[in-house]
């Protein structure tokens, strides 16, 4: 009887303790893989269903960028994601500053050297508006 109770207690408490220690594993993995010379700033978790073709990527987030800082945008996809995550970076006037999808090729990383301090818009979606699950990580290059 005692043996069963110990096993049950272990099964009950170990997952509870473990669950308190980590956030989304995809975020952890992506952030820690963004390179030794970068410092994590922010994650943008993106999960979308199938979308209709439209001129703009569906998810918008804002993020401040500062002059003379180099930022790294790392894009990672969940193992079961059907679509591949892409992003665009636009300044507050809507002018395109960077895109991870160039001539049909999706890049997993953009290094952006900022020369103009301000609020920027990050747009995320999956190629061809497919359903998908991924994360965009912004880190600061040291």
């Amino acid at each position, binding site marked *: 009887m005692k043996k069963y109770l110990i096993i049950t207690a272990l099964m009950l408490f170990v997952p509870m303790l473990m669950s308190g220690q980590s956030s989304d594993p995809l975020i952890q993995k992506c952030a820690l893989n963004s390179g030794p010379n970068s410092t994590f700033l922010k994650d943008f978790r993106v999960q979308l269903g199938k979308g209709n073709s439209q001129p703009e990527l569906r998810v918008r987030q804002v993020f401040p960028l500062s002059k003379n800082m180099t930022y790294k945008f790392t894009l990672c996809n969940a193992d079961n994601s059907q679509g591949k995550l892409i992003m665009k970076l636009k300044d507050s006037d809507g002018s395109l500053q960077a895109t991870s999808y*160039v001539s049909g090729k999706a890049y997993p990383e953009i290094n952006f050297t900022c020369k103009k301090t301000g609020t920027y818009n990050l747009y995320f979606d999956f190629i061809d508006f497919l359903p998908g699950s991924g994360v965009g990580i912004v880190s600061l290059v040291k």
Partner: protein
Amino acid sequence: MPARLFIILLVGLFLFTACRNSSKKNSNFVFPDADSVPVSEAEKLSDEAIDDIARNMSSPVEIANLLQRMKVPFSAGLLATSIDASRLSTSFDKSLKLGILGADLGYLNMYEKTGSSVDVLSSIKKLADGVNVGQFFDFETLKRLSRSRSDLDSLLLISQDSYNKIDKYLRDKGRGQLSALMITGVWIEGQYLATQMIKQHPDTLLRNRVGEQKIILNDLLMLLAPYCNVNQQFSSLCQDMQDLKLKYRDIKITFTVGDPVTVEKDGALVVKQTEESRVEMTDEQLALIIVTTNNIRNKLISNN
């Protein structure tokens, strides 16, 4: 009989864990995700505009990064060590100081002063518990990482992530005033570190960074504005921040236009902006900003 009891417990346990983590474990996509705002909704909701402003605050590690690049040595004397988390009684004080200590934590971590950060972490934990957001602060893991000094990347990631989650949770739960206070605390402490350092290290990079805060300060005031008449503490804070805004009034930020230059390097895209922002700020204007920032910050941390 024991075997039967064991099976019952096992089934109960299965149901408990399955329900508890149902949203996380579900492999189907959830749309819309709370952290992902579709464009059409983001444009029309004023709450989303507030979210935008809240997210538009620079991380304190950026200031620390800048100081490191300038080879400015670490200065323990600048930390808000006088904050006694156990003496604070109002949510206002707790949230504001949560932000101030968060900026200090970023500063300590970036300079790898991880041993010293354990004390700051203990205070942060008390404050976070005090405003019922302690569940987002993985104190034990952070303390272990700080003590071991082995995994700085994980330490920075979890620290930053904890603050991001607290901020998001507070805003999602309609406690935006506490989020605004936390963000204000982070900002004022980062501004304090930068303006104190500039006195000994009058570097152009740092000077420009202080000048550019004119943009951020305007946003911060918009974030605080809905709460300025909530109580005397808010009213006083808003007044102080307005005073600082006044010191920034005649600083000019101009822009030159240009197209970004993109190249491919080692499988990644490397983009450099040619468009540029410039700050025009006199020594007198800077001196007034330094003094005003110092007064506000010291008033906030002495008000225990």
